[in-house]
């Protein structure tokens, strides 16, 4: 069996999600190749070649792939599938955007957000915001999956796969990139961070959100996340949203500040190793899943926590 993993990358670096999807692919058994589709993405292709267990890297480079938009990715991947039995995408916005197009063109039913690979044909995925977990059998001749990276360990480095180039699709396409506003931050990326500090509606304003949470995140070397309520209210940008319909995170430490713990929020963070909740309402549902709950007003609790962390040498 041959499996194609579509790399998550920024043309220079291959994101950790790729290593995790490679692990999922290896669990299916067979040869695993990685596709790096981008523009001037030679460095990313070289990085992908170092992922352990990869047979070969396919590198497609061209202007049409600069933003990894759905139409050109479909045009690139569908013909490649004559040589593969399965294609796996990370469940990132890029993967979620492109994978169903490939599936539809191959006349294949896609499995979304896979969190477990039991065999080459048996997969596990959550439904209903993670409140039910289904095990499914996929016997289609070709398989298209999006994989939840947080559910898999990253494949190691130390591989030395060959890099083969493949042509980028020529276009033209009916969608065109106009602009982007990407958050710039020195903090770790939310979905890959070992620690995450998240804020909710309680923070009350954008200024307060950043005034309270940024120093705590910096002290812990953590990424910053938010509840939907905090994003909707404009306290935090959209890419901070953790949850069923935002990002799924599974850090070693998740600190929820002023978040009630709605099921939609829990769906995005309940697989964190240690969960801390700071909430002034002792009945808040977040305490049902928190390992350590502190019933307190964040206004006093967060500064105290900062002091205690300093005392503890953090």
């Amino acid at each position, binding site marked *: 069996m041959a499996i194609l993993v579509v790399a998550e990358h920024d043309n220079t670096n291959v994101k950790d999600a790729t290593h995790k999807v490679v692990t999922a692919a290896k669990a299916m058994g067979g040869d695993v190749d990685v596709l790096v589709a981008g523009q001037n993405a030679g460095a990313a292709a070289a990085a992908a070649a170092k992922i352990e267990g990869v047979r070969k890297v396919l590198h497609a480079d061209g202007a049409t792939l600069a*933003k990894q938009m*759905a139409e050109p990715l*479909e045009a690139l991947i569908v013909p490649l599938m004559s040589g593969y039995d399965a294609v796996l995408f990370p469940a*990132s*916005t*890029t993967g*979620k*955007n492109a994978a*169903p*197009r*490939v599936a*539809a063109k191959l006349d*294949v*039913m*896609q499995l*979304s957000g896979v969190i477990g690979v039991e065999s080459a044909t048996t997969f596990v995925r*959550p*439904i*209903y*915001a*993670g*409140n*039910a*977990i*289904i*095990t*499914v059998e*996929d016997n289609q001749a070709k398989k298209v999956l999006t994989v939840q990276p947080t559910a898999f360990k990253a494949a190691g480095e130390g591989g030395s796969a060959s890099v083969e180039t493949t042509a980028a699709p020529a276009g033209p396409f009916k*969608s*065109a*990139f*106009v*602009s*982007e*506003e*990407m*958050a710039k931050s020195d903090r770790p990326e939310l*979905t890959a961070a070992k620690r995450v500090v998240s804020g909710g509606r309680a923070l009350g304003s954008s200024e307060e959100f950043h005034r309270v949470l940024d120093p705590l995140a910096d002290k812990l070397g953590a990424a910053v996340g938010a509840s939907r309520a905090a*994003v*909707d209210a404009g306290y935090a940008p*959209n*890419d901070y*949203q953790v949850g*069923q319909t935002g990002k799924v995170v599974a850090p070693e*430490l998740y600190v929820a500040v002023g978040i009630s713990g709605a*099921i939609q929020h829990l769906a995005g963070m309940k697989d964190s190793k*240690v*969960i801390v909740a700071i909430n002034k309402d002792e009945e808040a549902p977040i305490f*049902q*899943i*928190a*390992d*350590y*709950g*502190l019933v307190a007003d964040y206004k006093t*609790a967060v500064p*105290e*926590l900062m002091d*205690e962390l300093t005392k*503890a040498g953090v």
Partner: protein
Amino acid sequence: MKVLVPVKRVLDYNLKVRVKPDGSGVDLSNLKMSINPFCEIAVEEAVRMKEGGGGHAKDAATEVIAASIGPEQAQETIRNALAIGADRGILVKADGEVEPLAVAKILKAVIEAEKPDLVILGKQAIDDDSNQVGQMLAALLDWPQATFASKIVLHAGKATVTREVDGGLQTLDVELPAIVTTDLRLNEPRYASLPNIMKAKKKPIDVKTPADFGVDTAPRIKVLKTAEPGKRSGGIKVKSAAELVGKLKEAGVL
């Protein structure tokens, strides 16, 4: 411009699903079903294109059609869309689960009959969380797509759409006809007024079957079992920040 909005009937988002003890599925009996929240946002946007508002000129859309694939009760979901302001409905009656690929194939046939200029879907249904139908439909039609939209600006023959992506926001131009899927920040759907709910009862709903469109809805994926998620072992309440830091040190996460 004609706008089609596919709407799905799902378990109400306030409710927590129960897994059947024998693992054969989830128990939805006697639970409140509602319009999928992302579909509601899609209907709201389409209706604003018709009424004016949300940055759209009045009459940018001339007709808004709501379509649903599902059981007889999906009529209620369509009535929901009609109460927000859609003009008419199409119900494609299918009992049992219809997979996203089959939904997309049925919608493709509906689109070929109705010829809308724009199709707005939810980015995901909150029951199966597939996040597939819009993209599949775009591929089947060879149309451009803009998923996870937080802003739509219509121009002659194209739409400029801002998308919520992992790193922030991305803006695209898509030629019409196109597929757009909605994210949470696109708009805040209105509460339908009582007069509009009454009016919706009189709006027409066409009833069809998948066979009318020649689509086979036999599932491709077999669900072997449905289980409860692993439970987290209960935690403790700490009394102070000092105790918390102590516990975190013990747990080895600092």
